[in-house]
């Protein structure tokens, strides 16, 4: 309803808080307000696809990459230490000769 003029009310910015779908010179823009979110929610069978890429899989791959990197770090720190120990032992044996 367009009843009241609201002349007395303080500057209201609810307009700015409402999310919107906009076209800007042919670009399609989805906008949320200052502290508002844009959320994608899928059920178990539904997908969000961006130019054919499944967004869920992308996030999954990011996590998988992160986990792999954690594993690689562990081995690349652990193995050299192990190898250094063996080389140290070899040196000791050589000195003992």
């Amino acid at each position, binding site marked *: 309803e367009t009843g009241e*003029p*609201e*002349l007395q009310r303080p*500057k*209201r910015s609810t307009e700015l808080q*409402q999310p919107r779908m906009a076209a*800007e010179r042919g670009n399609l823009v989805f906008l949320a307000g200052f502290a508002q979110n844009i959320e994608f929610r899928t059920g178990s069978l539904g997908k969000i696809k961006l130019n054919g890429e499944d967004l869920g899989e992308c996030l999954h791959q990011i996590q998988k990459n992160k986990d792999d990197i954690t594993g690689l770090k562990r081995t690349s720190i652990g193995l050299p230490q192990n190898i250094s120990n063996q080389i140290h032992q070899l040196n000791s044996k050589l000195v003992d000769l």
Partner: protein
Amino acid sequence: AYKLWIPSTDFEAAANWSQNRTPCAGAAVDFPANKMVSVLVREGHSISDMLLPRDGEFVLASGAGFSAQDASRDQGCGTGAPARFLDPDRFSWHDPRLWRSGDAARDLFSVDAERVPCRHDDVVFPSDASFRVGLGAIPGPARVRSVRALGQTFTRDEDLGAFLASRAGRLRFHGPGALSVGSEACAERSGCVCGNAELQPWICAAMLQPLGGRCPPTACRDALRPQGQCCDLCGAIVSLTHGPTFDLERYRARLLQAFLPQYQGVQVAVSKVPRPARPRDTAGAEADTEIQVVLAEARPETGGARRLARALLADVAEHGEALGVLSATARESGAPVGDSS
């Protein structure tokens, strides 16, 4: 006084659609490609296809949205022509039909030129609706006291100009015309001239556009044309020469309470207008404005306007000094059309 903009560009407004109804479930929807517009969406809609404007926006109220529904076979909705959103540029600032006066005196009407925002008016675009306004090519800017839009009130030209140039402003205002704010509020007890006289050709053109630019025929001979009115009307015009103590609002209230109840069928407009140049005007301290009281009646054969005009003249004769009215004259339209006198 304020004036409220009426038409919206809301998605749910049936009048915005080609078939005068909002798109049904599964409809194909077309927005004009090259018309900028902001569209408020209040509800959920299922659509099969929607072409968006190249520049525009859909503002989603809480709970509003769009879902996908393939063109339905059963409902006969998706099968017909697409629902077309009508040209959002069709609403003109100068069209009197598109404004509502915020004045309390609701039982009075305004002459056409004064239905469009006057120089001293505050203009309000409702914050709970989307809108688009065309500012036509008029000689100067449309001058008002303030403009309220998107919850902001603009009283300085710099602020208004920045808003109009912003994307939000360009989505809502278009056309070659200019808009200017900052006029004083009307401080005269006797009222203020609206200031739209120069714009009247544009105002009347906008209003009469659906009628092909012609006024409808009147029901009387020698119909009258009040100042600010686009078309002749039947009834009477009482002109009051006002003194310094005249109070426009008090006089309106007096008409509403003491006279109008006895003259059903007569519509009354009261406002201050420029005094027409008269050949033998007595020069001197007399105001260059007068109070125009328009008494209009759709059925002139009843003679109500004529009787009311005479009653108002008699009222001035009796109470003129108390009212602050120095003198009064009346003009009346002629006999009803079809009356064989």
